[in-house]
């Protein structure tokens, strides 16, 4: 579905992604694991097109600060030079890290915004689906999103992406900063979404809770992929295990 070939990203002279290649098949749940500053967020942002947006903005201010080289092959089309909105239309939606929701809008409004690019009028159905997935949100639907707890905001973030009816959801550290209870809830939701046939690419640095549902995983360090394999394979790799999955 998505094939990333030799993706390289520079911030000024610093290299954030170094010749990274990975593949995501339809319906898979793929995990990208690595410590902070390993390049996970850059990868996610680059796939979603945000890095390109940042690059353009920096360029206008003068100075060639961000360089993106490589190929992003989504359903047979190279999307490396396309705008974020185009990618959303194609079906790639990103849930950014630290669940940044629209704080001053109500939960309901947030979800509506998720369906911003949808032309059909079945927004209500999708929102109902999200409410079914996260019953908590329904209860809070008129509350301002900024008043929600971190876990609820993460649910909302995922919910917004779902309303956009994506083919591929990118989740950047969905479990970061959540309590164990909330982590469980999110993992459950991811499994549920995957069952609907949506492809999922998620990144996480603390992989233990998410491992059971990941079909395939990549471990990256300093922008380069060092190990890849199925969930079990990764779990069995002693080096990786020590570093990323807890003792």
């Amino acid at each position, binding site marked *: 579905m998505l094939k990333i070939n030799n993706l390289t990203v520079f911030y000024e002279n610093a290299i954030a992604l170094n010749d990274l290649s990975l593949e995501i098949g339809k319906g898979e749940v793929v995990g990208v694991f*690595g*410590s902070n500053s390993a390049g996970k967020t850059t990868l996610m942002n680059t796939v979603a097109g945000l890095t390109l947006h940042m690059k353009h903005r920096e360029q206008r201010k003068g100075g060639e600060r961000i360089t993106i080289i490589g190929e992003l092959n989504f359903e047979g089309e190279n999307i490396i030079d396309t705008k974020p909105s185009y990618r959303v239309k194609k079906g790639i939606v990103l849930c950014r890290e630290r669940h940044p929701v629209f704080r001053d809008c109500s939960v309901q409004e947030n979800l509506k915004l998720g369906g911003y690019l949808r032309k059909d009028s079945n927004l209500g159905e999708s929102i109902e689906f999200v409410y079914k997935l996260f019953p908590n949100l329904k209860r809070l639907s008129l509350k301002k999103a900024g008043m929600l707890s971190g*876990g609820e905001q993460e649910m909302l973030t995922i919910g917004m992406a779902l309303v956009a009816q994506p083919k591929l959801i990118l989740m950047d550290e969905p479990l970061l900063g959540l309590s*164990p209870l909330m982590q469980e809830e999110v993992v459950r939701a991811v499994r549920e979404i995957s069952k609907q046939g949506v492809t999922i690419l998620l990144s996480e640095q*603390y992989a233990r809770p998410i491992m059971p549902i990941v079909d395939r995983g990549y471990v990256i360090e300093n922008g380069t992929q060092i190990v890849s394999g199925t969930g079990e394979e990764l779990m069995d790799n002693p080096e990786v295990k020590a570093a990323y999955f807890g003792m």
Partner: protein
Amino acid sequence: MSQDLILKVSNLAKNFGGVKAVNDVSFELQEGEALGVIGPNGSGKSTLINLITGFVKPSGGRIIYRGENITGLPPYKIVSLGIARSFQMAKPFYNIPVFKNLIIPLYSSRARKLKGGAYGDRDEAAIHFLEDVGFERDSQVPYKAAGALPHGYLKRLELARCLTLEPDLIILDELFSGMSMSEIASILPLLAKIREEGKTLIMVEHRLRELFRVVDKAIVLNFGGKIAEGTSGEVMDNEEVRKAYLGSEVLSGA
């Protein structure tokens, strides 16, 4: 280990526009102890720290530090009494070299008092403190711009910033968040060393396994209120804590 009371928090409360961020929280801390503060997101952990360190003025309650009422004092006075804190999001001063980041606390009145009023070589002292938390003096790292540091080092820098003030009570806000296992593993001995020096520790954490390798007891917050207090086992077995926070995952052997 002496058993003097170092911090006594009683009935602490804070409202933000009608929201009770911290509600009637009390606890005591003996000299040399280490306390964990856990709870779901938004349960008021960070606010609690902000209240103790003076970043937020409480709506009610008292904070006694070594017999002195420090409720509502400005942060710099609280620091000068010997309480230092770290931030959850380590935001260094990006454009200046790493060691220069420590000049700020070294410039404070507390650091100057400790040095007996002497000016001293601050740069040298800064490097010294960086070494303490695992930076290598002879590598390029301490002289590079702080913005280029990898996350793990940022957290170490954050810790170094606290230690520079030579505090008696250290409050660490989610030190482990965003660190990899190996990074945490390398920082644990450091925390152990700090405890050996007899310093008191308060840690806000989500990473319970790692937390309980450092602290003796913990309090659990939910919706701003304290729902449990005790050793790791006591906390873990508490039914209310499980319901509100832990879920079904069993964290044995911590």
